[in-house]
């Protein structure tokens, strides 16, 4: 196995995080916001996986363990977010965040 340069992976995860943050701040549809969160979350998981692979010692394996836990956590987060969306959709008929105005002054 010849391997990969760690710098390239860091650039990829940085780009994915930037895409996620950008989507989270600009999208109006709640489902798209959820997807943006997942893109950013995947950047984080990718970080843990490749830092585990590049770790100097075998203790780096816990990076993979963290990645396993984070994948499960992210799925839970999506489920909870969708539950809130569905409840809101039922009473308001929209999931557009910009139309959520009950709390504005």
């Amino acid at each position: 196995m010849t391997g990969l340069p760690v710098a390239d992976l860091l650039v990829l995860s940085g780009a994915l995080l930037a895409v996620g943050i950008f989507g989270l701040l600009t999208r109006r549809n709640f489902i798209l916001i959820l997807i943006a969160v997942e893109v950013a979350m995947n950047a984080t998981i990718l970080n843990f996986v490749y830092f585990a692979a590049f770790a100097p010692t075998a203790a780096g394996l816990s990076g993979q363990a963290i990645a396993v836990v984070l994948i499960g956590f992210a799925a839970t987060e999506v489920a909870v977010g969708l539950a809130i969306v569905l409840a809101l959709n039922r009473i308001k008929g929209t999931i557009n965040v910009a139309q959520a105005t009950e709390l504005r002054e």
Partner: protein
Amino acid sequence: MSLEELAFLVLAVVAVGTGLAALLVRELVHTILWVSVFFVDLSAIYFLLEAPFLGVLQLGVYAGAVTVLLLFGIMVTRKRIFSRDAATGLGPVPLALAAVTFIFLVASVGEFPSAPTTLQVYDPSALSALLFGTDGPWLLLLGIIMMSGVAGAIYLVREGRE
């Protein structure tokens, strides 16, 4: 450039491209298509990084479960599936924030050697020993998170009069 590096380069470009496409296309259903490619692509990167267990998990949980969940969410919340409700306000501030994040991260790249590094290869059984051994509390915490998530989500979407 070795074969691995070439493969990684292609996968990385596809990852960023599909991630952006998922957030920018106007049809919500196309979003799901792009995002499922994104998830599969990352799974391929995990295989490339010698983490097959995570690759499989990524396929099962993200490309499988999460994608279906999101598709289901779109179908329930939109009367017409092909909706143009995705909104495309490209604010300068979020764009700048994302750019700054990226530039800062790239700044730290210089600290690492740009030559290929040999990968640690782990045995999946070592991973399971770790997950159910010293790092077990993380899984227990995940269990508690899922428990409250499930209980609350069921309550929120359950039909019934107050």
